[in-house]
């Protein structure tokens, strides 16, 4: 199962990189500032997942079996992917909610960083912050879809929602091992749907 998780994280890294490239390419052609913001958000998420993949493939199995120094190293390594993913999700949330006021944007980022730093870069702090941001992005996509229904946006909305559900599963995995199956199914389906939609768009 952990190999499947690593493969899915690599798939998310490749997917977010493809979306970043496509959005930036379209920004260079059509100069819409929202595309630059969108590609920056996805670039951060992509960098985060790059570290997730690298850490999981090369170091994580060793870190679990060793002492305090390695745990400190694990914290540093975690911040390598916690921070870019949270910054990316924050940029996307600011974009989708049209928060154009600079001071509000700053307040948003400061609150997130303060909460996260005080939380001590823990998995729980990351899980809570990223789930909240994920939920609000999915909610906005749902509202957009309700006002202007469209097949590709429905697929992307469904993909985001499935990823959000898989995130919720990841928070309760400690209850029962069987929940891993739900976690992987939702994650796989979410990544698959967004990949399919992105492929359809790029044709």
């Amino acid at each position, binding site marked *: 199962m952990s190999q499947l998780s690593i493969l899915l994280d690599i798939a998310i890294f490749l997917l977010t990189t493809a979306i970043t490239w*496509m*959005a930036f390419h*379209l920004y260079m*052609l*059509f*100069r*819409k500032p*929202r*595309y630059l913001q*969108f590609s920056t958000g996805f670039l951060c998420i992509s960098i985060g997942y790059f570290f997730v993949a690298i850490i999981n493939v090369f170091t994580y199995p060793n870190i679990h079996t060793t002492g305090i120094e390695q745990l400190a190293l694990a914290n540093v390594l975690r911040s390598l992917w916690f921070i870019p993913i949270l910054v990316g999700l924050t940029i996307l949330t600011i*974009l*989708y909610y049209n928060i154009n006021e600079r001071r509000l944007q700053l307040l948003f980022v400061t609150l997130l960083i303060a909460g996260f730093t005080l939380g001590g870069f823990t998995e729980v702090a990351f899980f809570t912050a990223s789930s909240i941001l994920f939920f609000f992005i999915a909610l*906005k*996509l749902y509202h*957009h*879809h309700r006002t202007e229904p*469209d097949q*590709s*946006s429905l*697929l*992307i909305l469904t993909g985001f929602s499935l990823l959000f559900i898989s995130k919720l599963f990841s928070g309760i995995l400690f209850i029962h091992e069987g929940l891993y199956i739900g976690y992987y199914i939702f994650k796989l389906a979410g990544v698959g749907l967004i990949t399919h*939609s*992105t492929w*359809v*768009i*790029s044709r």
Partner: protein
Amino acid sequence: MRRTRIDIICSILTALEKGSMKPTPLLSKANLPHPLFKKYIAELEAAGLVNKILSAKSTTYELTDEGTQYVREYHRFLKFSAGFRL
């Protein structure tokens, strides 16, 4: 909503997507006043996106290969905007 420069350029190029056109139907399809149309069509010619074909009777415009490629990217841009709600 006020159209941007890119919106205007794309409205001219997509109007030419189905084939060459004379200036009057083209400016009407792109919904542009004549002075603006002249300005933009000259820009598009200079950028190599549109060809001006002069004949004894009339003038027509058509897309170049680069223009066709640009329109293809514009459709991708519209699909991306619709999909990700940008």
